[in-house]
């Protein structure tokens, strides 16, 4: 990204990018000359040179492009994260007095880590994260493979599968709340056909998380399908034919030849899905319409918001937020590092 900015500024500043590597030697000499003449006038030349050596020679010229965003992001995203971390070290609660920054300690973290409610929330968060992502990937892949095999009305199916994703969590939560209704919900009517149920999916702490995961899978497997479908379309038909001629059955062909080629799609889809899983707060909030999600489905996000905005335990909420942030970072970090190592960033 920075590189592209550089190219743009270079073009704007003087079309310097036309030089070839052959005359770069000359340029270093020229630069040195300029720096030398500046050194006589003052120390600022030295600073400039140091900046240029560190960040590239068009660092200053490119500032108009990246500096505004850089400042806004620093203040509102990273600044807030920092401030949030600072608050988590205080004992700030309620609105009565301002946070007291004089006495910072990790008491809130100790309290959070030892709290059974937070531990349950962590377990639930992980369960939701893993189960939702895995099921979504598996289901999306199967759908993509079926759609890719040239079924009739392919485009219609694709739209139908993708449609739920365009709906808001608030809407889908309401849908599923009605459908899971133990007395007249369609899900229980379906189970009733086989003489099962009725189940109280939302009320039963053992079922609610699975029910929520199912609803989320319904909403997002269309997205996974589209990602996989794009990847499948990029595989030449000859790979299928070569595998068949080599003697692979349909299952083996997909398992050993096609699915391994979907690795990149899997990685990028799982990152997006995991982020959605961490954001499942909206869904749970909409399900009940308040800060207290159904028993058995409390995740870190809901717990954090409840502590902060309902109980006004600002410092405690902040500590939970930092834990959640660390969790998200642990997921995104390796991906970003992988991308960085492969020069995709």
């Amino acid at each position, binding site marked *: 990204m920075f590189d592209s900015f550089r190219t743009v500024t270079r073009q704007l500043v003087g079309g310097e990018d036309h030089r070839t590597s052959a005359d770069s030697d000359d340029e270093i000499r020229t630069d040195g000359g300029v720096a030398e003449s500046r050194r006589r006038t003052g120390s600022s030349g030295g600073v400039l040179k140091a900046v240029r050596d560190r960040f590239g020679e068009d660092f200053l010229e490119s500032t108009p492009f990246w500096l505004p965003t850089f400042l806004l992001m620093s203040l509102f995203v990273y600044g807030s994260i920092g401030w949030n971390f600072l608050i988590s070290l205080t004992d700030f609660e309620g609105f009565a007095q301002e946070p007291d920054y004089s006495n910072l300690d990790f008491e809130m973290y100790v309290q959070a880590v030892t709290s059974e409610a937070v531990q349950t929330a962590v377990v639930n968060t992980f369960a939701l994260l893993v189960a939702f992502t895995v099921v979504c990937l598996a289901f999306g892949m199967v759908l993509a493979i079926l759609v890719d095999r040239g079924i009739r009305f392919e485009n219609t199916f694709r739209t139908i599968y993708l449609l739920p994703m365009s709906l808001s969590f608030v809407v889908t939560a309401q849908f599923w709340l009605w459908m899971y209704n133990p007395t007249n919900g369609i899900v229980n009517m379906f189970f009733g056909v086989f003489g099962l149920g009725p189940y109280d999916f939302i009320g039963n702490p053992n079922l609610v998380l699975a029910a929520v995961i199912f609803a989320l899978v319904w909403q997002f497997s269309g997205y996974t399908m589209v990602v996989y479908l794009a990847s499948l379309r990029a595989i*030449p038909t*000859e*790979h299928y*034919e*070569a*595998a*068949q*001629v*080599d*003697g*692979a059955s349909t299952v*083996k062909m997909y398992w*050993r*030849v096609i699915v*391994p*080629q979907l*690795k990149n799609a899997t990685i990028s889809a799982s990152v997006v899905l995991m982020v959605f899983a961490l954001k499942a707060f909206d869904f749970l909030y909409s399900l009940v319409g308040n800060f207290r999600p159904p028993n058995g489905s409390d995740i870190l996000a809901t717990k954090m918001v409840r502590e902060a905005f309902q109980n006004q335990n600002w410092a405690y909420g902040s500590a939970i937020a930092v834990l959640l942030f660390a969790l998200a970072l642990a997921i995104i970090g390796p991906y970003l590092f992988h991308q960085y190592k492969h020069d995709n960033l």
Partner: protein
Amino acid sequence: MARVNLEGVTKRYGDVTAVDDMNLDIEHGEFITLVGPSGCGKSTTMETIAGLTKPTGGTVTIGDLDVTTLPPKDRGIAMVFQNIALFPHMDVYDNISFGLRLRNYSKEEIDRRVEDAADKVQLVGMLDRMPDEMSGGQRQRVAIARAIVREPDVFLMDEPLANLDAKLRVHMRTVLQRLHKEMDTTIIYVTHDQAEAMTMSDRIAVIDAGELQQIAPPLTCYNEPANLFVAGFIGSPSMNTLAGEVTDTGWVSQNGNIQIDFDPAELGLSPGDRPTMGVRPEDVYTSEKADTVTHPTQSLPATTDVLEPMGDEIFVYLLTDDIGAEKMALSEAEQENQLLMSVSPDSTIEEDQRVDVVLDRSKIHFFDAKSGEAIAHGIEDLAGVESASTAEAEGDD
């Protein structure tokens, strides 16, 4: 023994007929090439042999086995694809051994066969490379190794050299021919490149519009094309074809300037018939060279148009109309009376020059203008006709 037999194979996609009543009888150990322009159905024909598409009608037999409904893996075939189709997530060893591993061969057997195959295509020492670390030629050799490692009865090759650069392609041709000699298997090879077809095959099957036009050894296709399509497709540059009319004493081109004397009755032609005359550029000579030709025609007047020096020969475009110096942009009618001649590079021939040419009578072809079917190849044995009356009396076709 792996004979391959196609009987009445037809493949339709909706209203489009890709392959129409294809009959092929391929001997064991034969190197046969299916050749034709893009979309002529040659690849579809190969796919029906491979089992990748089911024919709409007809039967495919490999060896003594009717394989029409069998899946590809049970047909004893191996295939090499145009875009190489190596599995990008497997290294060379895994790619080559994929088919063997699926068939649960023992580890030692797989190792032995893979090394053997790698040796045949000069890939020794590259077995642990990934496909994206290899050049196009190396990848294509891996694809070939993947096919030969299975020791199939029949090799199917679908334009395997089309994605390689020209020099490599010529090299790979010799590699393939050597492999064919070593392995004594049937090879069915698809290409749109008539040069590949000419140089490698035992027999060529020329296909157009889903129909088999001619199946014959390369030189037969070249010297005795079964119809106008084969005549135009095999050989580069193409055969000259001129529309004309049969007279009492032979054949005359539309503009009347090219006359060839023979007795039409001997070819079953009668005056008024309008067969197309064909002659290859190398069978057209300037009249100075007429004495080197055993059976020259009479001198024909022409004007040189454009010269194309190729290094080893010069292609001369001849205009046979009486337009002489006032040459204009060629309209379609004029194109039809154009004649391409190939002369040796030391010739002093120039553009816009009057020149007399002769044709080699033994290399003149006649084709039915409507059906395109060949009527005659070579008319050196046909005497000229002195009197018009005899021909008139016999000609009733």
